[in-house]
Structures are given as structure tokens and as C-alpha cells.
């Protein structure tokens, strides 16, 4: 396994990624994050009660399509970023935490959605409150996404120092 990762890391492809292709890839990764965490965060905050007076919870489900667009943008760009230093990432505790937070955020979000957003009419009207159990799921999922962002930022400084990706 390590042998394979090292071969990828030493490949022309990984070299090309670490040079000219790096800025556009992290740009896509950031934009995807804004869509994924931004819109998922808005849905979770509505479930937690913000904007309850006028916003029907069920209608917020429509934003999920764009959450998934953000997710696929970040999965694809994330795989490319991983390809640059696979050997470093795979042994990096922060990276493992980041992936764990993302998986947990996705699972908790899916459970939240299945119990709430897909039920339709019951939460179709404005002014409805989500049950306490679902609010707990929303809070946990939000915490996971924020933790994934923080882990990702610290990860950049623990692996990318030697290619000069510091400022900004």
C-alpha cells in the first residue's frame, strides 16, 4: 500500500499537480466548501430554529442539490490534492480526523434529512419546530463540518509548508 502511494507521490502527475495545477485545485476545493458547508449550515440552522417564523423546513430541502454539487467538487479536488502527498496524508492524524468529521457530517446530515426534510407535508408549513432529537442531529452535523474546516486548515500547515502555500 505504502509502495503504491509513494509511486503516486513520485509520479509526473503528482509533480504537475504540485506545480501549476495546485492553485486552481484549492480554489475549487474552497468554492465547493462554501456551497457544501454554507448551504448545509443554513439548512441546519433552520432546523435549529433560525428563521422559524417564515421558513418551511421541507422547502429548505431544495438546497440539498447544491450541497451535493459542493460535495462532489470537493471529493474530486480532494482526491487530486491527496495525490500530491499521499504518503504524508495517509499517516497524518489531522487528515484522518478531517475525513472522520466529513463522514460523520454526511451521515448525521443524511439521518437528519431522512427524519425531517423528506417527510413532506408535516413540515411543509412555516412556523414548525423540529423535534429535539432532530435539532440535536443538526447541531452535531454542524459541529462536524466546522471541525472538518478547522482540521483542514491546520492540515495545510502541517503538510504544505515546503511548497510555500502560506499567505492568504
Amino acid at each position, binding site marked *: 500500500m505504502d509502495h503504491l502511494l509513494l509511486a503516486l507521490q513520485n509520479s509526473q502527475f503528482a509533480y504537475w499537480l504540485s506545480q501549476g495545477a*495546485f*492553485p486552481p485545485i*484549492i*480554489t475549487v476545493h*474552497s*468554492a465547493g*466548501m*462554501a*456551497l457544501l*458547508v*454554507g*448551504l*448545509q*449550515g*443554513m439548512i441546519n*440552522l433552520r432546523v435549529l430554529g*433560525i*428563521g422559524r*417564523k*417564515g*421558513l*418551511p423546513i*421541507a*422547502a*429548505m*430541502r*431544495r*438546497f440539498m*442539490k*447544491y450541497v451535493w454539487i459542493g460535495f462532489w467538487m470537493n471529493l474530486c479536488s480532494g482526491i487530486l490534492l491527496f495525490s500530491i502527498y499521499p504518503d504524508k496524508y495517509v499517516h497524518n492524524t489531522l487528515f484522518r480526523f478531517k475525513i472522520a468529521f466529513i463522514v460523520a457530517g454526511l451521515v448525521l446530515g443524511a439521518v437528519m434529512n431522512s427524519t425531517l426534510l423528506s417527510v413532506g407535508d408535516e413540515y411543509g408549513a*412555516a412556523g414548525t419546530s423540529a423535534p429535539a432529537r432532530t435539532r440535536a442531529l443538526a447541531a452535531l452535523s454542524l459541529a462536524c*463540518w*466546522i471541525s472538518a*474546516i*478547522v482540521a*483542514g*486548515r*491546520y492540515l*495545510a*500547515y502541517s503538510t*504544505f*509548508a*515546503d*511548497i*510555500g*502555500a*502560506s*499567505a*492568504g
Partner: protein
Amino acid sequence: MMHIVLAAAASVAGGVAAAGHAAGHLVASTASVAGDAVASGHAVASSASATAAAASSSASSAVTDAQLNAQYAAAVAAKEAAYPILRFCKYTAVGAWVRNSAWAFPFLQSWHFIGMTMLLGGVFAIDLRVLGVARAVPLAPLHRFLPLVFVGFGINLITGICFFCHDPWVYAFNISFRIKMLLILLAGLNALWFRLGVFLDLEHWGPGIEASRLAKVISAVSIVIWLAVITAGRYIAFT
């Protein structure tokens, strides 16, 4: 004399960058000296010619580390004297903290990215609704998220000032940074146009109501500008 000092500083920066294994922080600080030499209009045609000039001067008389350090310090003093406002920013307590703390950057960047999701999550939700996604969502209450958008902007303004103060020259003469600031200003004016120009009758924007063509154009422009802000922001480190 000034030419030689700046050329030497540029070659020091180039040498560090070429080494490639220095911490990004160091590359950023030293590169700013070279960037400033170019930006302040002194006769440094390119980093290649600057390096050549420094190489020929070091060939004629062996330059010691102490001399190089003195030249570097002189170049820093010269750029600070030339830009008192940037000098003021650099020596604020915040600037010193970010420069001297190893983990200030990832800490501040975490907040910068969290602020970005708060800001853009709300903006994208409103823009997408105006464009016709989630038409079942009434627009007026969607604006309950606006305080969150402003809190996100505030977080990013504060953390952004911290980044700027750590080495003002890195940002002030960086084309990506300048474009980013301009784009944020445009995005603000665009949002103001939406609020004052087409979004006057809040209560009529209920569920299922289709927005006007002008509102849709403004929202599409808003999404494009904010994506460009992200792009320019990420390119600050690479220009």
C-alpha cells in the same frame, strides 16, 4: 547604492524561494522585499537581472553573511520609511502576534473559512432562491439569515486585518489581494442595489413567487463575484 541593496535583497528572496524547502512564512516575508523593490519603481528590471547584478558584485568582493544581513536590514528600513501607513500596520500588536506565533496562521485561517461559509452560505441561499431554486422558500424570511451573513463578514474582516498586519507589503502590492478587495466592494454594491432597487416590497416575495429578470441578473452576478472573491483570495499566496 539603493539599487545594489535592493538587488541583493531580491536575490536573497529568490535564493530562499528556489531552495524550496523553507517554511512558507519565510518565503512570504522575504519575497515581499523583492516585490516591494519592484513596486516602488526602483530600477530592478527582473529578478533574473537582479540576481545577475548581485552575483557579479559578490564575485568582485566576497560578501559575508553579516554584510548580507546588514543590506537586508537596510532594504527593510528603506521600504518601511517609504510606506509609513504599512509600517504602522506591521508594528501593531496584532501584526507582531501573527508574525511571532507559529499557529496564528492556521488559527486565523480556520476562522476566515468559517466566516466565509457563514457569509456565502446565506448569500448563496438567497441568490439561489431568487434564481428559482427552492421556489417554495419565501424570500422575506430567508433574510433572517442576514445577521449571520454580517457576522461572517465581520469575522473575515477582523481575521483579514490580522493577515494584512503580519506583513502589509505582502498584501498591499499583491495583485490578487487588490482584485479581491475590489470584488468585495463590487459584491457589496451589488447587494445594496438588490436591497434598494428590486427588493423593496419584502412581504410580496412569498412562496412560489418568481423573481423579476433584474433580480435574477443581480443574483447571478452576486454568485459570480463571490466565486471570483474566493479565487482571488486563494491566488494571493501564488502571485
